[in-house]
């Protein structure tokens, strides 16, 4: 069965420093993987998605993620954090050949000035 594990429940960074949010996946098949962001009192927004094309995926707001099959990882990165990046981030995998989303437990990103 497909699943994702977000390795950190909370991450704190200073504004202007790099962001790394870690996600490992488990899948019997070549997975489709996503990162969603949830700002307080707002809906979930798709940041980026991997669907077996390029392993380095660029998303919105300067975020990117790299699919590493050997490590079963799909970590989210950003070179320089901004205050507006403070939010909850979810790593997501789909059930094979369907649109069913399986969410991780989330990582809360705090950005300090």
């Amino acid at each position, binding site marked *: 069965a497909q699943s994702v594990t977000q390795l950190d429940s909370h991450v704190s960074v200073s504004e202007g420093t790099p962001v790394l949010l870690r996600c490992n996946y488990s899948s019997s098949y070549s997975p*489709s993987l996503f990162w969603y962001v949830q700002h307080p*009192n707002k*809906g979930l927004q798709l940041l980026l998605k991997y*669907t077996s094309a390029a392993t380095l995926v660029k998303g919105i707001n300067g975020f990117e993620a790299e699919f590493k099959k050997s490590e079963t990882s799909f970590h989210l990165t950003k070179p320089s954090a901004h205050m507006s990046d403070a939010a909850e981030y979810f790593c*997501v995998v789909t059930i094979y050949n369907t*649109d*069913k989303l399986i969410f*991780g*437990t*989330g990582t809360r990103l705090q950005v300090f000035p």
Partner: protein
Amino acid sequence: EAGVAQSPRYKIIEKRQSVAFWCNPISGHATLYWYQQILGQGPKLLIQFQNNGVVDDSQLPKDRFSAERLKGVDSTLKIQPAKLEDSAVYLCASSLGGHTSHEQYFGPGTRLTVT
């Protein structure tokens, strides 16, 4: 384009009462989803509609939860009677069709507190 609309945004009820949530998807989106997000967890799919038909309701607690999507547009999710463990944010999402390539767009959610 207008996003997914949900109402109410917040609801507080006592256990054993009933409650209903409303969702208006993005115009033209055939697929509609209801998710439950318990505090500290990721969203979990409750039910999926394709137009006005149910595609997947395997995770819907049917003894107390019901949902409908009349005319294939708006949808309502009802809980009757509510339990304490139903306290959560209920998210509605819509997409063009039920395929991985079709992005799901989420509404702001309804935060339910059961006391």
